[in-house]
Structures are given as structure tokens and as C-alpha cells.
């Protein structure tokens, strides 16, 4: 069996999304580091795996995939009996999970990623200055999204339903970065959101992803 390979860097939020899923499902995989500083993700050998030149790229035997949220869904379905259930067998519950997965992709991530770029990636990885005008604008947008989350989490233990699922997991990488910045106040001032963040970031599978960054 050729097995599972993930090509990327554990610092990438998209790669981290896939790694968290693999750890939750307790599935063996090989991690293939991609040197983004050296532009390895724009070279032919990587473009053959992802023509958009972005990490992560994923292999499971002869199946090659990209786009982290497509990869996580594949893993959750293909390895459903193993590890943590990340999807629901009931079709109505699955539909609700799908709604909140789209919310993360369409509403949360564009805003949270912009803030992560300004407050984490620019200063710590690119040696560039944060644009605090952009930060202020996007903190306001994030606040609006988190107001909806606060109400949702008052009615539902997790975003996707009563149990932890892909809908919550997809938020982990960006949220974890933001909790190390000034943006954490937006999460902490909303009690349901704050409890949810504390819960999902404490998961052992997520801690394994964070530990990969220490190497």
C-alpha cells in the first residue's frame, strides 16, 4: 500500500487543517515538507500535484487531491469507522454540518485569514509591517461573524451540531493563530465562542499539529 502523503508545511493553515483531520482519524501518514521560502510549491514537481501551486497536496495511493476542505472531507468519509467521527450518518444532521462548513469557508475564513496575514504572517514570517487600518476594518467584520457564532453556540454545543465535526475543525488553524494576537479579545468577550475555542484548541489531535511546528 502506497499510503497517505501530505505535502506542505505545518505552519500553513490549510495544511494544518488536513493534519488535524488525520490525527483525529488516527490514520497513518507520511509528511513531505515543502520549502515555500525556496519556492518549491511553484516548481513543476509540486504543480503536478496542485496546479494552483498551493499547499497542501495530498496522496492516498494513486488518488491525488488538493484544497484542504476537499481533502478533510475525503478523509472523514473514507476513514469513517476510524478515530473521531467528523461527519454524521444522518442526512439532516449532515446537511446542517454542511451549512456551517460553508459558513467557515465563505464567512469566517476570508476575514480570519486576512487578520492572520496582517498580525502573524507579515511580521513573523515575512518581516513586513502590519497594516493596522486593515486590522481594524477586519476586526469589525470578524465581530459581526462571531455575533452569529455566539447565538449559534448558545443553541448548539458545536457549530455543526451536538458533536465536534469538520465544521468546527476547519476553524482550528486560523483561530489558533488569532488567539495569540490582539484579536483574541473578540473571542474572549463572547462566552459561548470563548468556551468553544478553548474546547476545540485543547483537543489532543490539534496539539499534535502544533507540536509538528516545534521541529
Amino acid at each position: 500500500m502506497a499510503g497517505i502523503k501530505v505535502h506542505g508545511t505545518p505552519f500553513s493553515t490549510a495544511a494544518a487543517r488536513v493534519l488535524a483531520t488525520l490525527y483525529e482519524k488516527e490514520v497513518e501518514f507520511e509528511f513531505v515538507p515543502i520549502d515555500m521560502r525556496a519556492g518549491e510549491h511553484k516548481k513543476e514537481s509540486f504543480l503536478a500535484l496542485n496546479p494552483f501551486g498551493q499547499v497542501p497536496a495530498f496522496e492516498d495511493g494513486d488518488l491525488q487531491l488538493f484544497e484542504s476542505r476537499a481533502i478533510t472531507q475525503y478523509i472523514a468519509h473514507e476513514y469513517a469507522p476510524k478515530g473521531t467521527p467528523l461527519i454524521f450518518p444522518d442526512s439532516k444532521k449532515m446537511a446542517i454540518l454542511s451549512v456551517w462548513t460553508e459558513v467557515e469557508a465563505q464567512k469566517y475564513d476570508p476575514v480570519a485569514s486576512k487578520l492572520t496575514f496582517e498580525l502573524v504572517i507579515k511580521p513573523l514570517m515575512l518581516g513586513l509591517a502590519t497594516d493596522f487600518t486593515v486590522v481594524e476594518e477586519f476586526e469589525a467584520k470578524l465581530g459581526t461573524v462571531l455575533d452569529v457564532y455566539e447565538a449559534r453556540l448558545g443553541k448548539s454545543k458545536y457549530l455543526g451540531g451536538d458533536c465536534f465535526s469538520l465544521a468546527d475543525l476547519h476553524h482550528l488553524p486560523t483561530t489558533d493563530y488569532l488567539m495569540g494576537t490582539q484579536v483574541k479579545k473578540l473571542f474572549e468577550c463572547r462566552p459561548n465562542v470563548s468556551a468553544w475555542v478553548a474546547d476545540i484548541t485543547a483537543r489532543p489531535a490539534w496539539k499534535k499539529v502544533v507540536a509538528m511546528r516545534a521541529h
Partner: protein
Amino acid sequence: MALKLHGLAFSTCTARAATAIYEKGQQFELVPVNLTAGEHKQPGFLAKNPFGQIPVLEDGDLTLFESRAIATYVAEKYKDSGSDLIRHQNLKEAALVKVWSEVESQTFHPVISAIVYQFLIAPLFGQQTDQAVIDANLEKLKNILDVYESRLKSSKYLAGDFFSLADLNHCPYLFYFMRSPWTSVVNERPHVKAWWEDISSRPSFKKVAEGMTFGQK
């Protein structure tokens, strides 16, 4: 009990959901939402979609929002009728549908929607069109469609040699984009052009497109 789709015929996201329903050979009742009167921001509507946006699907006691989630739900529920949008019997094909659906969602959509907003929607709200935004996004769109062109040389549709949800999700915004002055971006790429002509001529989308009169008198 019939599917109820709350939205408007000319709305791109409503059109996405409607096309999926028709592709599955199903019908729905369109419940108009009066955006001009701010109906989508009233408590009654916010109870259905806390983000105050159309469309919303009601199927009995199930209420869903986010057009791509609605399309996926419909594709799953009616998987044994109409066209096979999600390839549920072949795990590899199903995974590729998800890959290219995410490409639409994450890569294509932010760029195409920025262009459509500037040239079609902004003027109708008395806003100045920001040509710099259009120009920047046209450059990104060209790069994205170069990848599509290459993909479509070896694959009839995005996920494989079969029409799927990944192609369908592109239809509404591409439809309005093809009313812009920049259609050459599509037409100069022969495989992208052929693909667009194919997916936009499917009866399900043609029916939906009849209502996509936004910006027209």
C-alpha cells in the same frame, strides 16, 4: 411537501441552488424575499439565516442556508434521480468533485464576484465602479482560467469526463460575467469557452437563466 426556496430569480446564489434542484429533476416553490424593503434583515428571516442572505431552503422542518450547502444537500437527497452531481458510487470521482468544488469556492468565486459586483451591482446602487479592483481581479482570473484551460484539455469537465456540482457551481457568476466587456478572458481560452458553452446550455441552467435579468430593464 414541496421544497421552498426563499430568494430571487436574478440572484446568483439563488440561481445556484435552483439549478441544482432542476438538475435533480425536482421542483421548488420560489418564495420572493423583498431585499429592497430589507426583509432579509428582519427577525423572521434572520431566524432562517442568521447572516441575513438569500437563498434559504426549507424542506419540511429542515432549514438550510449557504447556496453550496443547499446544492450539496439536494444532490445527496435526490442522488438516485436526475443527473449524478456528486458521483457518490465512486469514491475517487466523488473526491475530485469536492476538489474542484473547493476551487470554485476558494479560488474562482472571490475573483469573479469582485468583478461582477463592480461592473453590475455597484452602479445600480449609485456607487462608483472601482476599475482598479476590476483590473486586479481580471489578472487573477486570467491566471485561474489558464489552469482551467490546461485541466479541460485532458478532462471534459472539471472533475472528470462527467458534469458535476463542481461545474454547476460556476454557472451563475460566469453567466453575469459573460455580460461584461471582458468576455475575451473566457473566449480566448478554447477549452474554457467550450466548457462554458456546454454547461450553460444545459436545460436546468437555461431555465434558471431566464430569470437572471439583474441590471436589465
